[in-house]
C-alpha cells in the first residue's frame, strides 16, 4: 500500500492488489497517509493457501478486472473523517462501569478496566513534569495521528501509570516515532509484540521489578508501562482489528523487563543499553518486537562450557521463519535476545567470561542445518523470494562467507551473521538457573533505544484547557 501512496504522491494513478483479509488494513493505511479511498483489487481468498491453477483462475476471473477498473474508473474522492473530537472534548460522561463499557464499545480499551481519563486527572499527571501537552513528538506512520504529550498522558491515566513514569512513556513514544523502529509494521500478520527493556540507575527507585517474576504482571511499574504501550498502539496508532492490526494470534501486553543493574555492576558486565551506544550510567529504554520466546529451563552445569550448548540450543529452537531477517524481509536484522538469570550470568563471570565471550561461544553453537535454514526462508514460508540457496546468497554478497563454507546441505550455519547479533540481558530470580530466548521481528519493530530524561521539562508552560 505504501508503494501506491508514493505513486499517488507523484500524481500517478495506482491500484493495490490485496487479499481480502488485508483490505481493511490497506484502507486504513491509505487514510493514515491522507489518501482515503485509494483503489484496491481484492483477490479471492489468500493466495498462499491456493493451488496454482486455482489461484490463476481466481486472478483472471475477477482480480484483473478490478486492477483495470482501479486505474481507469474515476470514482469520486472520499472525504476523510473530519468529525472527530478535539483533545479536550468530553467524549463521554458516566460511572466507572459505564465509562469502561463505552470505551470497550469504541475500541479504546484493552479488555481490562481502565482508569477514566478525566481532564483533571490527565492534567495532574502532567503538571509536575513541565511538559507542553501540545508538543508533538512525531506522527504515527500507520494512522497519521499526532503523537502529542497530551495523548501520551491520557493513555497513561487509562493504564494506571503514575506521573513519575511519564519520562519513560515519552521516550517510548520517541521510539515509536523513529523511522528506524518501523512502528507501522506493528500489526503484521505474524503478530509479534514489543518487549520494553529498561536500564539505568532510576529504574529501581521507580519500583521496577528486575527480580523474581521479572516478566510477569504484578509489579505496578512494569505492568502499567507495558500496558500503556498496548493502549497507545491501539488508540493513537490504530492497531485495532478493524484497522491496522492483522495479528493472526498476538500476545498479551508484556510487562517491562528491567535489567538487574546490581548484578551487572557486581559481575562487571555492561547493561544491554551499551550495545546501543549508551553509557552504563544512562537511563535508557530499549524496544523491539518479538516473534517467539522459549524458556530454557533448569540449566544444569557449573562451568560455561557445560551450559553454553543448552543455551545455544534454546536460541536455535526459538528461531525459524524469522531467519528471513538475516536475508529477505530484513538484511542482517535478525538479532535475538537471551535473558540470563543472575545466577547464570554470575556463573559465566566467575569463570572470567565477559558478555562478548558468551556471545562468541553461542555464535559457534547456535547453528542449524543449511537445508533447514533455506526451508525456513524459502520453501516453507515463501518469505524470501527466488529460492536461492545460502551459497547463492553468499556469492551475491548478500551474506557473509560463514554461510558457504561448503555446499553440503547438512552443514551447520549460524542463526545470526556475527556474535554481536546475539543480545544478552540479565534479569529474573537471582537464585534460579533458567534463561529465556526471544526471536525478534527484524525491521518490523527494530531494536531502538532512547535516553530517558527524568529532569523537569523546560517546555513552555501551557494553558491546558485553553485553545484545544
Amino acid at each position, binding site marked *: 500500500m505504501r508503494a501506491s501512496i508514493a505513486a499517488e504522491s507523484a500524481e500517478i494513478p495506482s491500484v*493495490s492488489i490485496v487479499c481480502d483479509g488485508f483490505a481493511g488494513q490497506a484502507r486504513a493505511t491509505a487514510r493514515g497517509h491522507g489518501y482515503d479511498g485509494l483503489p484496491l483489487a481484492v483477490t479471492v481468498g489468500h493466495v498462499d493457501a491456493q493451488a496454482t491453477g486455482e*489461484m490463476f483462475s481466481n486472478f483472471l476471473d475477477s482480480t484483473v478486472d478490478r486492477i483495470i477498473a482501479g486505474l481507469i474508473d474515476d470514482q469520486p474522492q472520499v472525504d476523510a473523517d473530519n468529525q472527530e473530537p478535539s483533545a479536550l472534548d468530553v467524549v463521554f460522561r458516566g460511572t466507572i462501569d459505564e465509562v469502561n463499557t463505552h470505551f470497550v464499545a469504541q475500541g479504546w480499551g484493552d479488555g481490562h478496566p481502565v482508569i477514566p481519563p478525566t481532564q483533571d486527572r490527565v492534567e495532574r499527571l502532567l503538571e509536575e513534569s513541565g511538559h507542553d501537552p501540545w508538543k508533538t513528538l512525531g506522527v504515527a506512520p500507520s494512522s497519521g495521528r499526532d503523537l502529542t504529550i497530551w495523548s501520551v498522558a491520557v493513555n497513561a491515566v487509562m493504564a494506571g501509570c503514575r506521573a513519575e513514569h511519564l519520562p519513560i512513556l515519552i521516550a517510548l513514544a520517541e521510539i515509536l516515532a523513529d523511522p528506524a523502529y518501523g512502528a507501522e509494521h506493528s500489526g503484521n500478520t505474524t503478530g509479534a509484540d514489543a518487549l520494553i527493556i529498561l536500564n539505568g540507575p532510576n529504574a529501581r527507585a521507580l519500583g521496577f521489578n528486575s527480580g523474581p517474576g521479572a516478566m510477569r504482571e504484578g509489579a505496578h511499574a512494569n505492568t502499567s508501562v507495558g500496558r500503556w504501550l498496548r493502549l497507545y498502539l491501539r488508540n493513537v496508532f490504530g492497531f485495532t482489528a478493524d484497522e491496522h492490526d492483522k495479528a493472526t494470534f498476538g500476545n498479551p501486553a508484556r510487562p517491562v523487563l528491567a535489567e538487574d543493574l546490581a548484578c551487572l555492576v557486581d559481575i562487571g558486565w555492561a547493561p544491554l543499553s551499551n550495545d546501543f551506544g549508551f553509557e552504563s550510567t544512562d537511563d535508557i529504554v530499549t524496544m523491539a518486537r518479538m516473534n517467539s520466546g522459549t524458556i530454557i529451563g533448569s540449566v544444569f552445569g557449573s562451568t560455561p562450557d557445560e551450559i553454553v550448548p543448552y543455551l545455544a540450543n534454546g536460541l536455535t529452537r526459538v528461531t525459524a521463519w524469522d531467519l528471513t531477517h538475516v536475508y529477505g524481509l*530484513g538484511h542482517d536484522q535478525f538479532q535475538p535476545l537471551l535473558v540470563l538469570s543472575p545466577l547464570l550470568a554470575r556463573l559465566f563471570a566467575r569463570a572470567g567470561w565477559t558478555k562478548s565471550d558468551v556471545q562468541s561461544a553461542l555464535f559457534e553453537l547456535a547453528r542449524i542445518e543449511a537445508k533447514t535454514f533455506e526451508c525456513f526462508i524459502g520453501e516453507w514460508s*515463501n518469505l*524470501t523470494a527466488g529460492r536461492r540457496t545460502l551459497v547463492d546468497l553468499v556469492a551475491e554478497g548478500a551474506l557473509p562467507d560463514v554461510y558457504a563454507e561448503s555446499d553440503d546441505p547438512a552443514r551447520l550455519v549460524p542463526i545470526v551473521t556475527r556474535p554481536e547479533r546475539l543480545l544478552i540481558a540479565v534479569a529474573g530470580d537471582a537464585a534460579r538457573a533458567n534463561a529465556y530466548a526471544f526471536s525478534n521481528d527484524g525491521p518490523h519493530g527494530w531494536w531502538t533505544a532512547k535516553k530517558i530524561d527524568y529532569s523537569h521539562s523546560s517546555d513552555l508552560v501551557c494553558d491546558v484547557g485553553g485553545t484545544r
Partner: protein
Amino acid sequence: MDTTYDVVWPQSPRGVQQRRRADRLDTLTNKRVAFLWDYLFRGDELFPVLADELTKRFDGIEVVGYEEFGNLHGANEKELLLSLPANLRDRGIDAVVSGMGC
C-alpha cells in the same frame, strides 16, 4: 450514588492532511504501467500473468517489471519508497500496479 466521570478522547488528531489522489486514466492503451512488488505472496507468479493479460487487452501497453524497482518491503524499503516518486516520473510511468498485500 456512583461518581460520574467526564472523560476525554484517548485518540489524537490526524496531523496528516487529506490529499487528492491522482486522476485516473481514460484507457491503458499505449500507456506505460509499472509493477511494484513487496517480494511476498506469490507476486512472482501473478505479475507475469497480469502482464500477459494486459498486453492482450490493450494495444501498445508497455509493462515495466517489478525487478526495475527492487523489493519495496525489504531491508531498503524506506530508501526505495522515498525515491520512488522521482523514479516513476523519470521512467515516464503512467500508472502503477502494486502488490501483494496479504
